[in-house]
């Protein structure tokens, strides 16, 4: 496929690649021209279901959390609507998080070096001082974020159900749920901010993986070298 550029006039190359990418939308880890399909359509749809429902939950929830963000309630039609919508968006968020967990679980096996990401490795990575040569399709930070997201979704759901029907539950359970719902949302929101940053401004070329589903070969070679070698056949596939 790499000889597409030699066969087609300049200008039609991108168009031809687009067509090829669309054709490859149900495939993953395949090379199309100068790009590699990183996330197939289903992966992207699941991701955006989680993202949209979370943003909805966040905005409706922030309005309830503090009057400082009370203005967000007007985006949805008032605080009473938020109280109702937050719960249903929460169901949507949890359902899509479960789908996401099951969809990606097989690719998220923690390797030996991945646990180090909980510690200083993350900070070294942010300073671009890590040796990423053995990083596969997902690095340790991404895997840990995957599991903490799943755990957060579970915690938010369980405590959320108690908060949704407060009068059906015991007082102590209601109080614990309130505190846990707050703690989880604060930590999760902070990590989502980091996630959005790393997926956009911090690492250009990444966002495309969740829109058209593709990254450049160059990007893959730089951020996920082992995955690149696996995709190109230089190394045995492990994903």
């Amino acid at each position: 496929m790499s000889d597409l550029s030699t066969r087609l006039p300049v200008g039609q190359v991108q168009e031809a690649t687009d067509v090829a990418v669309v054709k490859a939308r149900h495939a993953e880890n395949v090379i199309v021209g100068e790009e590699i399909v990183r996330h197939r359509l289903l992966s992207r749809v699941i991701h955006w279901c989680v993202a949209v429902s979370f943003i909805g939950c966040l905005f409706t929830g922030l309005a309830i959390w503090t009057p400082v963000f009370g203005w967000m309630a007007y985006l949805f039609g008032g605080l009473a609507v938020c109280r109702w919508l937050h719960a249903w968006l929460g169901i949507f968020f949890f359902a899509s998080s479960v789908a996401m967990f099951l969809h990606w679980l097989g690719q998220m096996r923690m390797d030996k070096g991945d646990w180090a990401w909980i510690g200083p490795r993350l900070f070294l990575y942010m300073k671009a001082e890590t040796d990423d040569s053995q990083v596969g399709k997902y690095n340790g930070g991404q895997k840990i974020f995957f599991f903490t997201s799943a755990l957060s979704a579970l915690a938010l759901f369980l405590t959320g159900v108690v908060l949704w029907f407060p009068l059906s539950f015991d007082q102590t359970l209601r109080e614990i749920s309130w505190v846990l719902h707050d703690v989880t949302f604060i930590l999760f929101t902070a990590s989502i901010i980091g996630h959005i940053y790393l997926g956009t401004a911090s690492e250009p070329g990444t966002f495309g993986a969740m829109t058209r589903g593709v990254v450049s070969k160059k990007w893959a070679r730089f951020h996920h070298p082992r995955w690149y070698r696996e995709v190109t056949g230089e190394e045995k596939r492990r994903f």
Partner: protein
Amino acid sequence: MPSQHLEIRRSSASLRGGDTGIRQLRTVSKYIDTTTCIGCKACEVACQEWNDLKTQSTHQTGTYQTMPELAADYWNLIRFDEREYEGGVTWLMRKDQCMHCADPGCLAACPAPGAIVQYSNGIVDVNPDQCIGCGLCATGCPFDVPKFHEATGKMAKCTLCVDRVEVSLEPACIKACPTGCLQFGTKEDMRALGEHRVEQLKQNGFANAALYDPPGVRGTGVITVLAHGDHPEWYGLPRDPHVPWTVRFSKSFLRPLGFIAIFGTIAGVFGHFMRHGPKKPPDDTPATKPPPAARG
């Protein structure tokens, strides 16, 4: 229906109420003497009538109590219990309703601005216009008073007949009481009455008689004379009610911490971008990056 005449001292999810502090209203209180209550339920009927609450069938629970619990359309309930006392049995009847705490847990817990208010005379009221029916007030209440109304999706409770009090009438329950065990007036007057009655009870052999005005919620707008003041739980009253610490913890600790965490992370990523910029592949990225030491 919230009062149109009384100034609001405190309002939920707001820094403060809108009162000017110019008009000096005295804090009002109900006085309930459980020792002279005969359990006639006239107060229950008066409450239903004055507040236009639905007529309800009573529930036979095997006692002299009309309903098992307070409800969103049943704001006043004479609780009944019997206990063994000095070789005999004693009947305990206490009028249960909103206690109108000076430090209301419902107001502290409520996330909707202005949905729960405390007027400058101390009455705590739910404003259905603003209520979102989340039920957090019930979690904040140490007396389990606010109830969810299924049909309206709002919380409801005793208003201390604020619509009567603001025009200088006594609450409907007080008006209906035939024995005088219910009285209404300023908090000081009601306390004086209660302390006098407690002294009488002590002289009459109830050594543990006490006035229930719990300091944990900085006193209540409903003070109760108990013959067995050492056993408030016999009357269905918590021994030492407080606004749950988790409510304070969420509002006063977790919330500022959350602001710091969320805005701190936003500031952090901006700072990172300014310091390190985007992480781009070098123009000629080799398949394997050399270790950092080799990159100078």
